[in-house]
């Protein structure tokens, strides 16, 4: 875990409300796991008051060395709006890598990745990580959903990695007009995956959880809550366990990736 001032390497628009931002970081990020995140704050700013969590989208390498991290973010409010106004060379405070990433096991051969909207952010990192683990890309299937075609990101990146991809949009402007969980269930019934990895809106995750339960396919989901510290100090990021008894779990240090069977979504 490193607290540092990060220099912005680039901050490029990647669609209507989406941006990719490159940040310098400690070389220790070479050990970061997909699903891990950072807390980002603007130096000396009282508004927004709290740092904001963002998943690691990509590790930036130059000559094989870790030179930075890339985030993919959507402008939804004051913090992300302010971030979108930052330029190359500006400095932000970052803390990370935080939380627990997706868990990979060598017996996962056939892998489904489900991403809704900005939920794709950690999934590109996951896909490239799976490649380094020797996963056969043609055994990986990506289900990418968005409200419209403007909300579909990274499809080319997944294709370039040799992964199969299913696209759905709510308005039919690209791919099939349905929820991303439709092709997921169809594909799953045809050929069972060993694991489903999912990130996206809560409604989507609930549906994915239902499918995973119905077909008893293991599933890991990355979830979001509001956060103050991102590192276990405030206990603000509580989520309910499946058996709504016992203590709460905490997204920043028990997650943000959870085995879906543990969670009450």
């Amino acid at each position, binding site marked *: *875990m490193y607290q540092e001032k990060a220099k912005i390497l680039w901050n490029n628009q990647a669609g209507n409300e989406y941006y990719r931002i490159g940040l310098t970081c400690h070389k220790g990020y070479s050990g970061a796991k997909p699903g891990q995140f950072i807390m980002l704050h603007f130096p000396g700013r009282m508004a*927004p008051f*709290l740092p904001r969590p963002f998943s690691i989208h990509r590790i930036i390498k130059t000559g094989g060395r870790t030179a930075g991290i890339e985030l993919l973010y959507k402008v939804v409010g004051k913090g992300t709006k302010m971030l979108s106004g930052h330029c190359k060379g500006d400095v932000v405070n970052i*803390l990370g890598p935080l939380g627990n990433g997706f868990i990979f096991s060598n017996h996962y051969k056939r892998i489904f990745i489900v991403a809704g909207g900005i939920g794709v952010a950690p999934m590109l990192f996951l896909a490239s990580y799976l490649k380094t683990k020797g996963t056969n890309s043609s055994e990986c299937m990506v289900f990418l959903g968005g409200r419209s075609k403007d909300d579909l990101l990274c499809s080319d990146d997944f294709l370039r990695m040799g992964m199969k991809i299913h696209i759905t949009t709510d308005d039919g402007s690209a791919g099939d007009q349905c929820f991303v969980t439709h092709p997921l269930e169809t594909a799953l019934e045809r050929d069972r995956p060993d694991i489903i990895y999912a990130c996206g809106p809560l409604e989507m995750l609930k549906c994915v959880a239902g499918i995973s339960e119905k077909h008893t396919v293991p599933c890991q989901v990355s979830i979001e809550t509001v956060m103050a510290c991102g590192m276990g*100090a405030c*206990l603000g990021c509580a989520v*309910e366990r499946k058996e709504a008894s016992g203590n709460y779990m905490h997204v920043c240090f028990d997650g943000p990736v959870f085995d879906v069977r543990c969670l009450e979504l």
Partner: protein
Amino acid sequence: MFRDGLGTDKSRLGIKLYGFIDMNKKKSHMRVNIGGITLKNPVLTASGTFGYASEFEKLIDLNRLGGIIVKGLSLEASRGNPPPRIVETPCGMLNAIGLENVGLEAFVKEKLPFLKMIDAPVFVNIYGKSIADYADLASRLEDIEEIAGIEVNISCPNVTCGGMAFGAYSESAAQVVRAVRKSTTRPMMVKLSPNVTDITEIARSVEGEGADSISLINTITGMAIDIETRRPKLANITGGLSGPAIRPVALRMVWQVAQVVNVPVIGVGGIMTAEDALEFLIAGAVAVQVGTANFINPHATIDIIEGIEAFLEERNIVDLSDIIGTLNV
């Protein structure tokens, strides 16, 4: 002694006249005493904002802290409130964590071994649902040597008495402190709630019951509403406001209390920088606690310690005590 290339002794030449930095300056004394415990500097961590310290191990040198106050502890583990538990507000945040904690047994087994290794006094912040709970917890902590003292959080609802906070009235505040005092000989800091009419009255009554020091303020009760859904932003409806938004209120209360009690006062509330901490010290606080700032800058405590030291040294103030309670009015 500092010598330049010519071998002249700069301090004897009175270099200050020439605008150089006096490298011969003594390090200022940062030590303070809070009710029987000497701290190497006046900066403590505020309860509930620093976990059990291990969370910060990789980010700061914990041995440099003046003191550590851990998350509020109860006899039994407590689940805390349902989410959402926090919401950002202008220059601050509301929290309704609901005092989630691991309980005494797990604290001793799982958290204390790490805390023991830190070269800084550790205070256990305690709370209970009844006066008996407070007393019971204090007596069980009595024999744990590694704990420097306890901080009694009296801002909790009195379950057996209509749910008003113990700290809301001087009688109930006094009852808690009296019971805890009977159960422990250890240094006892009592943490006041700001949600009262006259804070000096409460301060005097807890001092009268044997508090060794008084810390203030806890969070100020507040709320926030989502105007689209017309629902409260916190599941608990109300929560405690913290951060710079409450600093002027905290400062005023610290100043008032410092004038009426003889025990050391520890200032808490919205301290983000050394300048903020110095305001509290000048107002009469002997030490300060840093809370919400840890979320924004996990290095805040160390930055504040260094900032206070630099402030003193730049002004040739040899001892921190030379500024405590020196408000010019």
